[in-house]
């Protein structure tokens, strides 16, 4: 986790050392390429998980339901709190 923060700070520093359009352009290319390669590799790892494949038919729907409910709960509560905070910020 801390190494990721160091790499983020390093990217930030390198970005500050070059022109803004260059930093934004290179940063965008790097983050896009990194994201697509990361997702592909994560997909491969998930596809290879033998035990997950076997158990998925058994508890897949329940896991999906719980993931959806937890995600939806986070979205709703955070959305409401954001509205409250931005209402208070206004004069």
């Amino acid at each position, binding site marked *: 986790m801390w190494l990721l923060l160091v790499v983020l700070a390093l990217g930030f520093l390198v*970005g500050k050392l070059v022109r803004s359009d260059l930093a934004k352009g290179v940063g965008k290319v790097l983050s*896009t390429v990194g994201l697509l390669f990361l997702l592909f590799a994560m997909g491969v790892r998930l596809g290879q998980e033998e035990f997950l494949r076997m158990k998925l038919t058994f508890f897949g729907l329940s896991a999906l339901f719980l993931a959806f409910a937890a995600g939806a709960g986070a979205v709703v509560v955070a959305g409401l709190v954001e509205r409250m905070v931005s209402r208070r910020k206004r004069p």
Partner: protein
Amino acid sequence: MIGIVLSLGTGVLFGFSGLFPSAFGGFLERWIDISLYVLVFGVGMELAWESKAFEELRSLGFRVFLLPLAAMVGSLLGAAFVALCSPMTLRECLAVASGFGWYSLSGVLLARLGNPSLGLFAFATNVFREILALVSLEWVYRAFGGWAAVALGGATSMDTTLGVLSRVSGGKLVPLGVVSGVLHSLCVPFWVTLFFQFL
């Protein structure tokens, strides 16, 4: 959005069909690490000239901690709702949902705490949460706003979903995503253990 689904889907097909030999497991782990560092470095570069992102953080002050707090409360409320309408107990649902998308840690923690099948269930649930965040983040951002989008990512908003957050918000949500992701990640071991052992 299409790129995200295509990359993930192609990867799953490759892994599932055996086109990517499982003997290259170590190589795959390194690939994931390097891609993550390239992604985060790129986001850092983009962020360097994104003044609005820091203005947002500055104007929020201490209220910035309300976002991860609200996201955690929301996730746990969602899990409690599932406990009401399924055969699972409240303790199980809360322990699993408090992985907040960090599937490797929550799965291993629950397995080590003495329930390997719940660990496996936590692994699958949090994998689904991460995939759900990746594919629906853009829509959630447009429909419910920035905080909701960051909240959906949970612990992953500082790594795997950070690139998507940066893309959909033009970099504005990156500092919030990092703060929220770090706090979620720090809380995962605490909540998982607390709900599993003491509830």
